[in-house]
């Protein structure tokens, strides 16, 4: 007897296990199911990767467009791989921890030492015409040099010098200053000398980025030509005289020069005796570590937007956000719809009446104007980031459960009339048992289908709201598209800005709709083709 009992139990357990495993197998057995599983799996992996690789404060970072890293990227930068499509590309290269070329004390008695020896072949006419003359005070000088190859016939956008100093307590930070001098030796042999700044160690300890064309070049340009303009408005064009040669004598246009560029950075220490600073540096009491970044016209896998933000990172951040928005809104809508629909249908009476009137109201309120209002309220209320997004999601949920409720109610009404419900009552089953064992299992397949189908709906709604200008501040796909729209990325044909988030939205929707179709086929065997 015990033998048989065990057999019975084993067979039941085996059957259960088989039915659980088989639902995945069933999805996998359809091509559409396979595709959807692969895409959703990819989305999940991308989300995990994004959460692990991006800093936790990425949304704040994304909004701070006036700060690095975005300021060190090209603006409207192409994706790097467009060079394989024949687009002329200037790479963005960062030279971190540049090796010290030479360090010596400049002696003013020897004019050949000033400027440093190997910078002799400065383009005399051009520099003279700009009134530029390298200053030559006495001091301890460090020289750093990198070489950059410009492959495409296009102007790199800028060269940025990043200086970061460290100093021990022995050093008086305000008295020691550093004068960085940048020389660019072009493939045509011309060396351009750009203006030097003067920064105290105190400032350098905090870290500083100096943009060559704006911070160094433009003031001189304005000064020389007595231009009635600001540095900001002028410096967008100043990469041309650095990386190109004038097309004519009046320099009405420039042509980029391809080939190898040498960027030399000389750091001149002042405000303290040269021997003293040399000693401090040797002992490690003062160290200034420079890095040089040539900003080309391309950056990263997916390029940058008009503010220099890396669109690949933005897109990556969109994965977990899209999954969270889609799944949580869909889950909440289906859960509320299921619970209220079952209550309404099964218990009827006054409860039913109340729920149905509520549904009438929320189904008939136009959602879009309401959401716009909510968006305005969020902005005036100063909400931003996840709290703002949560509010938007809550409103989406609050006005979307009506449809599910109506359908679940009518399903419940028809299931309630099934003889097996009466049979369960006759057996003495409690109301809860009837609802949970007999009614809800019948509705679950439908609820699953609704769930899967409403995931993309929520994402699309969020994207639509972003484009309408409801700003929750998170870099979602919809937000990136909205930025592209606002910054005229579409008008400038910045396809790398518009297409990837658009395609991701499409792919995301497709995956869930495909999964929905597959589940539908499984749940409703009459739809099966085999």
């Amino acid at each position, binding site marked *: 007897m015990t033998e048989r009992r065990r057999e019975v139990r084993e067979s039941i357990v085996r059957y259960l296990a088989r039915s659980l495993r088989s639902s995945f197998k069933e999805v996998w057995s359809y091509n559409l199911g396979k595709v959807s599983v692969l895409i959703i799996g990819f989305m999940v992996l991308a989300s995990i990767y994004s959460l692990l690789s991006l800093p936790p404060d990425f949304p704040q970072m994304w909004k701070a467009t006036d700060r690095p890293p975005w300021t060190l990227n090209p603006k409207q930068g192409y994706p790097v791989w467009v060079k394989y499509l024949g687009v002329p590309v200037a790479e963005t290269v960062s030279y971190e921890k540049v090796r010290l070329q030479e360090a010596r004390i400049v002696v003013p008695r020897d004019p050949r030492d000033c400027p440093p020896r190997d910078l002799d072949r400065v383009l005399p006419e051009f520099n003279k015409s700009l009134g530029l003359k390298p200053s030559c005070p006495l001091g301890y000088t460090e020289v750093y040099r990198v070489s950059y190859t410009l492959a495409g016939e296009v102007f790199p956008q800028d060269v940025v010098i990043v200086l970061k100093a460290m100093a021990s307590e022995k050093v008086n930070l305000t008295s020691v200053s550093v004068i960085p001098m940048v020389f660019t030796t072009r493939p045509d042999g011309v060396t351009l000398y750009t203006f030097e700044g003067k920064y105290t160690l105190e400032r350098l300890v905090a870290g500083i980025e100096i943009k060559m064309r704006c911070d160094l070049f433009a003031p001189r340009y304005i000064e020389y030509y007595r231009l009635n303009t600001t540095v900001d408005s002028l410096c967008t064009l100043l990469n041309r005289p650095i990386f190109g040669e004038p097309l004519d004598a009046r320099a009405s246009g420039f042509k980029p020069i391809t080939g190898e560029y040498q960027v030399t950075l000389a750091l001149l220490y002042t405000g303290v005796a040269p021997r003293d600073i040399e000693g401090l540096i040797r002992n490690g009491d003062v160290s200034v570590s420079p890095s040089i970044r040539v900003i080309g016209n391309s950056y990263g896998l997916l390029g940058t937007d008009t503010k220099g933000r890396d669109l690949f990172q933005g897109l990556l951040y969109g994965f977990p956000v899209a999954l969270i928005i889609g799944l949580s809104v869909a889950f909440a809508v289906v859960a509320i719809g299921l619970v209220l629909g079952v209550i309404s249908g099964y218990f009827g009476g006054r409860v039913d009446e109340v729920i149905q009137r509520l549904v009438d109201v929320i189904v008939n309120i136009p959602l879009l104007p309401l959401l716009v209002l909510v968006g305005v309220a969020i902005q005036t209320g100063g909400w931003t980031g996840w709290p703002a997004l949560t509010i938007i999601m809550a409103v989406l949920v609050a006005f979307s459960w009506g449809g599910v409720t109506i359908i679940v109610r009518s399903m419940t009404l028809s299931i309630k009339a099934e003889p*097996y419900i009466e049979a369960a009552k006759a057996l003495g089953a409690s109301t809860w048992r009837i609802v949970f064992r007999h009614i809800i299992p019948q509705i679950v397949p439908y609820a699953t289908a609704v769930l899967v189908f409403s995931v993309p709906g929520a994402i699309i709604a969020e994207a639509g709201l972003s484009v309408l200008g409801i700003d929750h501040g998170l870099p979602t796909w919809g937000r990136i598209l909205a930025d592209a729209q606002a910054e005229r990325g579409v008008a400038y044909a910045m396809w790398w800005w518009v297409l990837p988030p658009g395609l991701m939205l499409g792919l995301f929707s497709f995956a869930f709709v495909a999964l929905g179709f597959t589940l539908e086929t499984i749940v409703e065997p009459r739809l099966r083709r085999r």
Partner: protein
Amino acid sequence: MKVEDLRVWFPVRKGFIEALLGRVDYVRAVDGVSFDVDKGETLCLVGESGCGKTTTARAIMMLVDRSDVKTGRILFKPHDEVLKEISKIQPNAVVNGEYVDVYKTRGRAEKLIRSEIQIIFQDPFGSINPRMRVYDVVEEPLVIHGIGSREERVEAVAKALEAVKLTPPEDFMVRYPHQLSGGQRQRVAIARALVLNPSMLLADEPVSMLDVSIRAEVLEVFNELKSKRGLSLIFITHDIALARYICDRIAVMYLGKIVEIGRSDEIVEKPLHPYTRALIRAVPDVVPENRLRLRVVPIKGEIPSAVRIPQGCRFRPRCVAYDENEWVRGFCEKEEPGLVEVERGHYVACWIPIKGGSSHSSSS
């Protein structure tokens, strides 16, 4: 079990004004039904569609709204342990120290009564949840009433399935209803009803939706249950030939009332009520050439609405005997006949036998 003067009236939804004035019409689905079923006895309720057989069964099962049960009570004699338990929990539901008035039970007492009275429904395709495996279906009553450990329940389910000849039970336990034939499903329903070991079983047309070829297997199960378990059975059918085969006594119902009740062979061989005669005449003949002959079933018209029950004898508008026996018309029009014991244990509600007229009309 005793059913006493049971009336189940369903209100008819009417217009706003009528509802406001408080005028309510009722469908008198069951309109004063009394009968009793002894222990181990099988009673058949026979009648055409809409006569109130199923409503009677549902009223016994407490499946109708309590407010729709206008009069009457259902007294049920459960197992001794159950009776003891109920007299402890709810002494006011116990009548004469041996019966339980089922409509007075509430909560736990009601649940106990439900474990004692079970029903098998007409539709074996609808009465089993299509998403549950046979094991879960048959186990459910045990789970609901909290009986046994998991192992004991597996054993009980296996035994119940064996009792309805679904062998080997392990093969059937893991199947879904759609993998079973109609007969097998109905036997699963029977197993579900039996697994609690009830003392009363109702069967509401259990074979009328099955193919003729598989009716026998289900009826066989019923016969065996009767002989082996000593179960009281109320068997509802519209087929009087089947009733004779399965039942000890037959009660013929017409428009919410029992018009004739008695031992099966007496009812079938010596029917006293014109309606019973019509039912018997309507049974198809197995001899093929007889089937081709035009048969006269001694009844006319259609069953009237249960909202407007005819004055006097409710069968009068359809009665052939009423047309033929002029002498009795006065009674039929004036007053509804009650059930009168015309022969020993044979009750009939028709003025002709009551007033001593010839029970067999010329038309038979």
